[in-house]
């Protein structure tokens, strides 16, 4: 019953499912017009085009409007605690490296309460995809400022305007050493499907920030339509300096694959550690070392 924990190369019999086949029996309860609908439908399309069998796909999430994501996907689902999706997803992936694990959540979940986990998932290069639906606000709790809200945002919880500088998730991920970094927009579904596919095909930790406006508490559709544009054609996604340069731009917000590199994943690293432990096992020095603490 208990699966043995052994890293294997991700291979599966290709499924032939339509995007709609990845819909669960539960209809999203998001407000009509919520950007998360765009992310969800792009996700259905991406996993369908990648032929991922539902019995290989896990969607884990934190708490927030966006955290409801797994309920709407016909796959294994783990709707955990606020900000803690990365540890959950890490545990799932390490217990069964054959699974395709996607973590999903909001900007508050990822960059506020859960920020402590992001650098470590990056550092470990856990082979999962993290999709952050960034609406620059707390949607579920009805419109408080988030770590990506602009300075001066006036809301009930910030009646005199926020004074904190918003953080830059892409720069953070790049600086921490994420092996795949990208940004999409829920209103650009064609590009978003591509981004999700590339992120999921990447071996290692892929970090995808998706602008996903909250029509109810912070309608940014017009703003993002004006300020976003594709990364320039001369950008080389293997060039970290170039990725950082474009990530720093705050007037024009670029969409696309910022950066990618290959590094051993956490399960690969663990397999190497295991080989070492096996080799060292039961030697006289090892046994003796147990008595000399």
């Amino acid at each position, binding site marked *: 019953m208990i699966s043995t924990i052994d890293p294997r190369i991700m291979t599966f019999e290709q499924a032939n499912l339509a995007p709609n086949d990845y819909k669960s029996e539960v209809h999203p309860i998001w407000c009509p017009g919520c950007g998360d609908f765009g992310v969800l439908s792009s996700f259905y399309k991406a996993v369908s085009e990648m032929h991922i069998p539902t019995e290989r796909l896990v969607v884990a999430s934190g708490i927030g409007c966006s955290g409801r994501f797994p309920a709407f996907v016909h796959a*294994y689902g783990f709707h955990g*605690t606020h900000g803690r999706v990365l540890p959950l997803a890490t*545990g799932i992936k390490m217990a069964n490296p054959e699974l395709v694990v996607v973590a999903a959540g909001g900007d508050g979940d990822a960059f506020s309460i859960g920020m402590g986990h992001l650098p470590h998932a990056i550092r470990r290069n856990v082979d999962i995809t993290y999709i952050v639906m960034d609406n620059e606000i707390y949607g579920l709790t009805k419109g408080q400022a988030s770590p990506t809200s602009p300075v001066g945002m006036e809301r009930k919880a910030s009646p005199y305007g926020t004074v904190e500088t918003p953080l830059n998730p892409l720069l953070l991920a790049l600086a921490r050493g994420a092996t795949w970094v990208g940004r999409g927009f829920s209103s650009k579904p064609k590009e978003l499907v591509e981004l999700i596919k590339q992120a999921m095909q990447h071996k290692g930790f892929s970090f995808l920030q998706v602008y996903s406006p909250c029509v109810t508490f912070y309608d940014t559709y017009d703003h993002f339509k004006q300020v976003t544009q594709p990364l320039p054609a001369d950008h080389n996604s293997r060039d970290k300096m170039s990725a950082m340069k474009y990530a720093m731009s705050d007037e024009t917000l670029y969409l696309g694959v910022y950066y990618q590199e290959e590094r051993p994943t956490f399960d690969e690293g663990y397999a190497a550690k295991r080989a070492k432990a096996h080799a060292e096992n039961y030697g006289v020095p090892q046994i003796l070392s147990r008595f000399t603490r």
Partner: protein
Amino acid sequence: MREFIDGAEAIARGAFAAGCNFFAGYPITPATPILLRMLRELPKTSGVGIQGEDEIASIGMCLGAAMTGAKAMTATSGPGLSLYSENIGLAITGEVPLVIVDVMRLGPATGGATTVSQGDVQFLRWVTSGGFPIIALCPSSIAECYSLTQHAFNLAERFRAPVFIATDKEMMSAQQSVNTDAFEKIEIINRVAAPAGGEFVPYQTKKLADIPAFAPIGGEQLTRLTGSMHDERGMLTKKTSAVNKTSRHLWQKIQAHRDELEFTKLDAQEGAATLVVSYGITARSATEAVRHTRAAGKLASSLIIQSLWPLPKRALRESMRGISRVIVPELNFGQYRQEVERIALSLDPRPEVIGVDRVDGELITPQEIEELFGRG
């Protein structure tokens, strides 16, 4: 074979004997010795051991792994247990099998990191929001560290719930010469697997107190869980009938099986008027006090509690019948004594309950307990 080992080693060996194949933890005195052993031994097997970035991550990884089919354990002390709290709630509501070792140390906050205590007894009982029951075992010898850890895994599997091992700094780090061949091997059970085929409903049970069959993430059946109040499908719901059912199920699944969850050791002496009720490291002093009292020609009885929670009401009530004085020695301000007092109230004649409390980082000596026998 006689070996010179500590409780941490015995817990680690007990975990392996029970089939533990996942551990994640964050270093904290006095729980670190468990972490060291698990991280040393797990890579030699097909299991996984991870040092998390903090306690919230560590227990989170355990939850993810456990729902993927692993038998997971984590270990911490009071400050870390505080950080586990929310995800313990997730384990309760998601019905995730998990073993959590709490190596108690003195005081609130950082307290006395290297100082013995039994101060988390009520904290463990109410360790997360909602007020749902939990299971906590408490070894008082190296051999019990081994056997009760296996029981903890069995109970976690059987009840699909977090199971605690409440222990302390002295139990974990004082080495002792023990005959490890005499360690009790317990028959290991695993969670009941959902039958293959047919429609799988993750949290469906026939009766309220039944434990739902398990299908791992990545197994034959699509399964899901949520930390939110959910229906049988594991889908968030606000429907009062479904919420009521889930709440009552989480209560009933432990409460209706309390008899299975009582682990105690009674050493009653015919005609004794005094009973000492003890647990953990303090039970060792209590045992010595009883031995000494008897050697002096006086009568004395002892009840050692191995399962702190749910409260072993039946054993407590039966052992206290006809007793006029109950002594409860504890390294806290009487956290378990208040439970014993409540049971005493229901007895006629009602025994007097007196405590020996120590909160200065020293152990209670057998003499301190024996004095109270003498006065009886």
